[in-house]
């Protein structure tokens, strides 16, 4: 009994110390006011004045401010749009790759799987920098296109939303491929044959059997891409331009350029609340899938 309690307590303590407590601190800062001080916000807790006076100083002013300045909701909306579009693009690229991997001869599969995971061996930051080298005006892509004669003058890709999409699709592709691959691998080949036997063309069988039966993998992959993309900061700041508006970037600017910790904290809290919705949906999908397998 004691041992079980300890086993359960460890992850909960971990979550408490590294998630709940920091979140409480951030939330408290979000309710404070900016101040030219160190740390740059007010009020600070003071033993002399007591907890009552301290709580009286807190208010939701910063959250109200987020609704008043249209920069913020535009940034949230733009992040949402970029996340949705890039999730869709990743699905479009990832599904055929996962499908191809499953259809490949058995002895190739471990190698193909290795190739999907291989990019993780290099730092994420370095890989995004590499894309800057590829996409810039004098970059490899433009050099190649000019060499083949397809274009005369270099295309401007770097510092546009296109570059952001390329970066996101590239970075998060493995998170899309792996769950879809595992769903497709479990698919019984005789189901496809049965569908064809009952009068389906190849395409109909794919649409009526393969897609519905890999749905759980598709949903899992989409959430695994969508959730981190929504708050993505590195890719839009390195590959995106001045018109790429993403909430991660806004957060960074509030924090480091404006040194407005309370507003930055409020932005972070709202972002977290926005993310809870897809996370809960994702959990429910996983749970439903597990129930279906039993």
């Amino acid at each position, binding site marked *: 009994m004691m041992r079980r309690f300890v086993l359960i307590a460890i992850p909960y303590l971990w979550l408490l110390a590294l998630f709940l407590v920091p979140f409480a601190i951030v939330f408290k800062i979000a309710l404070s006011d900016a101040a030219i001080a160190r740390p740059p916000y007010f009020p600070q807790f003071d033993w002399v004045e007591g907890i009552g006076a301290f709580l009286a100083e807190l208010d939701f002013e910063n959250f109200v401010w987020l609704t008043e300045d249209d920069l913020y909701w535009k940034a949230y909306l733009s992040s949402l749009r970029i996340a949705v579009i890039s999730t869709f693009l990743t699905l479009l690229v990832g599904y055929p790759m996962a499908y191809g991997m499953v259809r490949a001869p058995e002895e190739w599969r471990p190698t193909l799987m290795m190739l999907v995971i291989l990019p993780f061996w290099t730092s994420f930051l370095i890989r995004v920098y590499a894309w800057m080298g590829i996409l810039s005006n004098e970059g490899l892509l433009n050099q190649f296109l000019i060499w083949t004669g397809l274009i005369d003058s270099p295309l401007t890709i770097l510092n546009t939303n296109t570059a952001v999409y390329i970066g996101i699709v590239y970075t998060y592709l493995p998170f899309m491929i792996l769950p879809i691959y595992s769903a497709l691998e479990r698919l019984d080949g005789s*189901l496809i*044959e*049965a569908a064809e036997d*009952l*009068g389906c063309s190849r395409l109909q069988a794919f649409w009526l059997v393969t897609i*519905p039966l890999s749905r759980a993998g598709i949903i899992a992959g989409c959430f695994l891409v969508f959730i981190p993309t929504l708050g993505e900061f590195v890719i839009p700041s390195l590959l995106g331009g001045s018109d790429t508006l993403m909430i991660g970037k806004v957060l960074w600017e509030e924090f480091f350029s404006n040194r407005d910790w309370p507003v930055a904290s409020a932005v972070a809290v709202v972002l977290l609340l926005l993310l809870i919705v897809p996370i809960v949906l994702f959990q429910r999908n996983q749970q439903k899938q597990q129930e279906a397998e039993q």
Partner: protein
Amino acid sequence: MTIPVFEPWNDPEAKPLIQFQNVTKRFGEFTAIDDLTLGIYEREFFALLGPSGCGKTTMMRMLAGFETPTDGKIYLSGQDIAPVPPNKRLVNMMFQSYALFPHLSIWDNIAFGLKRENKPKHDIEERVQEMLRLTRLEKFARRKPHQISGGQRQRVALARSLAKAPKLLLLDEPLGALDKKLRQDTQFELMDIQEKTGTTFVIVTHDQEEAMTVASRVAVMDNGKLVQVATPDRIYENPNSVYVADFIGDVNIIEGTAKPTGPDQYDIAWKEGAEPLNVKSQNSFSDGQTCHLAIRPEKVTISADKPADADNAVQGRVLDIAYLGNISTYHVELPTGAVIKAQTANTRRIARRAFNWEDPVWLSWTATAGVLLAE
């Protein structure tokens, strides 16, 4: 009134529904089907029987359209089916694993094929209802495949493959996943349904009892070739080779040399020291030719005393008894060391069993009890 016997294979006028003409199928170096010619008639319940890897499943998959013959032609109602893709064939298959769509209800599973034909909704509903009634699944229409039992799943698979009223239904080890009792019931159900719908059934199985029970004709296969194609009783009583005799049921194989003694009469010299056996055979053998006498255990009589005027009688002692409840199989060792199996019905209670281990006994059989085979 006499019911006409169903045996189109004996009618020279009858045209087979399916015709394999010198069909060969190779997978790389491996020959799965070797120059095979066969005709299957309409309304037949045809069984392909053989050990795993004999090519029976390959034949079925060629009929369904999942494989194409390397050589030769397959005709369905006189039409070469090689260029017809699986979804355009009037052939449906019931898969060994059933292959029910797990994301669809029983109703939708059965309707799946019908919906592909773009039939009016009303017709589809009627047909599905008919299939549900035929397979006694009305109560389960709204359930998903994982919510019903194995036997019910088997019936869904059957209903789904019959829904489109195919000319030919292929059944790949349809009862393999069921337990023995359920399997026996289902065999009779299958025969009933086959009779009611009048569809031609081709069943693949490795279970000889199942093949004998359901089929109008059985094809015994080995290494991509047909060894014998005949009715179940002919396969059992008149196997054309030691392979078939051995594959179907229990059998004693006695090897010896033939010596003709009269019309269709032979003396078989076997294991030194023993008297020659007296055998009648339609198959002719020359003097001194090696032959095999295949004799079923139930056709060997076991007795305590030497039976008078038996065609063949040998003495031995009981080595082993396999008690199966209704029958017992006695393994009797002859003085030469050969073991012969004899089977008797247990008409008396076991406490009053006439023979026990180590008892000296006599085995006897008539001259026509066995079949004399060259190989």
